[in-house]
């Protein structure tokens, strides 16, 4: 794994406001200030796949009852999540489980670098919250037909799974229920734009995720150390 300072995916970096309405920083600030006084047991952090989850019924049904917070921002790559977690989003809370789902937006980065970014986030979470378990979700396939991003995401998953197997503070979960059909295509009924999940697809992804989180929540507290 390349050292942090030469891996752009593992170097904390805020998102630049190129559009002109400062939305990314607004959302980050809201997450920080909104977390004061809340005592979530579960924190979801990541990109649009996390963010959109909050907008559908499945969040209210499955995850609100678990006292979950959602710190997803659409478009985020690993370096953005790293910056956010370093700059206040973990300051006021100590969830038992952090669900991390990020990596698909790391365009231009190699699978090794993306894996490095994800692992850097896992280490950061463990440093700030030693008793928290980090659940890393596998990247979903994307695009209607086979393409290089599907291959990239699969490679990232393989590398991350390997790295996490030696850590006890974190684990990997593959949440793909089999979106790629036998002919290699993905249906728009599952990924309406061949990237983002429909409400029905979220149900399929979240049921096993919910079960896993519940199991983790019911475990006795984590020991110290990696």
């Amino acid at each position, binding site marked *: 794994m390349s050292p942090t300072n030469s891996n752009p995916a593992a170097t904390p970096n805020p998102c630049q406001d*190129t*559009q*002109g*309405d*400062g*939305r990314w920083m*607004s*959302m980050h600030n*809201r997450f920080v200030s909104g977390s004061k006084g809340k005592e979530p047991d579960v924190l979801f952090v990541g990109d649009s796949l996390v*963010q959109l989850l*909050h*907008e*559908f019924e499945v969040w209210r049904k499955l995850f609100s009852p678990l006292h979950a917070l959602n710190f997803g*921002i*659409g478009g985020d790559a690993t370096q953005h999540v790293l910056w956010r977690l370093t700059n206040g989003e973990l300051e006021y809370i100590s969830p038992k489980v952090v669900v991390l789902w990020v990596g698909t937006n790391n*365009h231009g980065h190699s699978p090794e670098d993306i894996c490095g970014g994800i692992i850097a986030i896992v280490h950061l979470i463990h440093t700030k919250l030693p008793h928290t378990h980090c659940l890393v979700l596998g990247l979903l396939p*994307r*695009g*209607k*037909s086979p*393409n*290089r*991003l*599907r291959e990239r995401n699969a490679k990232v998953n393989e590398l991350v799974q390997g790295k996490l197997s030696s850590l006890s503070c974190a684990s990997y979960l593959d949440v793909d229920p089999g979106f790629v059909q036998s002919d290699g295509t993905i249906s*728009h009924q599952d990924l*309406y*734009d*061949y*990237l983002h999940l*429909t*409400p029905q697809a979220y149900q399929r992804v979240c049921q096993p995720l919910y079960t896993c989180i519940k199991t983790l929540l019911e475990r006795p507290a984590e020991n110290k150390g990696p």
Partner: protein
Amino acid sequence: MRPFGAQVRARSRSTGVCGRRSLFRCYPRLAWHVERVWFDNQTRKRSRSLVFACCARRRTDDLFERLRRACYNCASICSETTSLRTSVDREFIRNQVLTARMSSDETNPAAVPAPVEDVQGDGRWLSQHNRFVQECKDAEPDVLFIGDSMVQLMQQFEVWRQHFSPLHAINFGIAGDTTCNVLWRLHNGELENIRPKVVVVWVGTNNYQHTAEQVAGGVVTIAQLLTSRLPQAKVIVLGLLPRGEHPNPLREKNAEVNQFLCSWLSGQGPAQFLDVGTEFVHSDGTISPGDMFDFLHLSSTGYQKVAKPINELLLQLLEEPSEEKSGSLV
């Protein structure tokens, strides 16, 4: 070169369909000078008012006078006029000229059709476009929604099933699209074989490289393309929503786009403007994440707020009998 024009208002009981053709047939030499002719058909009380407006390429007194007379004579030829009056409505002319300028390819980059380049590497934009083209072969929608993520996301919420599926609506929204992308899609198959009665257009907030006037011109170009390809259809142009948690330049720009659209689409043509964004900015200038979860995209609550006026207008338009429209109209 400042354009100018002449306008004739004629009260008549006919539809004056022949207006534009007669101008050029009767005055062929004038046709060369005339950049655009507008023909408007307004119904007031029990008689119709025909308005011809011409925009000439050069400004000379002689040309102006010839144009005015030509419009006057054409109005009297092609209609059973009860009274004729010529006037020069500078505001009207200026608006029409600006519309013509802003919606022509050569001057407005926001009106140039362009596909999205696949920079990420999974070809999703083209996949979505191709799926819409295929859908045109199978579906018989009464309502077509086209635009960017504001349109696309709507289909993922309950509000679509509740308010728009029952109206036989289809959704051709693609996140990130600009006016250029929507234009390209409409030119390349997304209008084939379908004859919706109403088209709802919602696009413009992603046109970061363009000025407010250019964006509005791009939206108007889309409306014009729709009315020319679907003469029976009515078009609803939705205003751009405010964005960002606090006041910012993009809010001002979107508001400016809406102002242009409101004034350009205020006539009685088949395209009309509907502002659905009036409820989102609170008195302290902020937008709530309860309405827009990322200060741009609508939440389920936000969609409920905009769906109501859209649904009401749709029901109204779907109940009106459709008529063949003639002339070039914004």
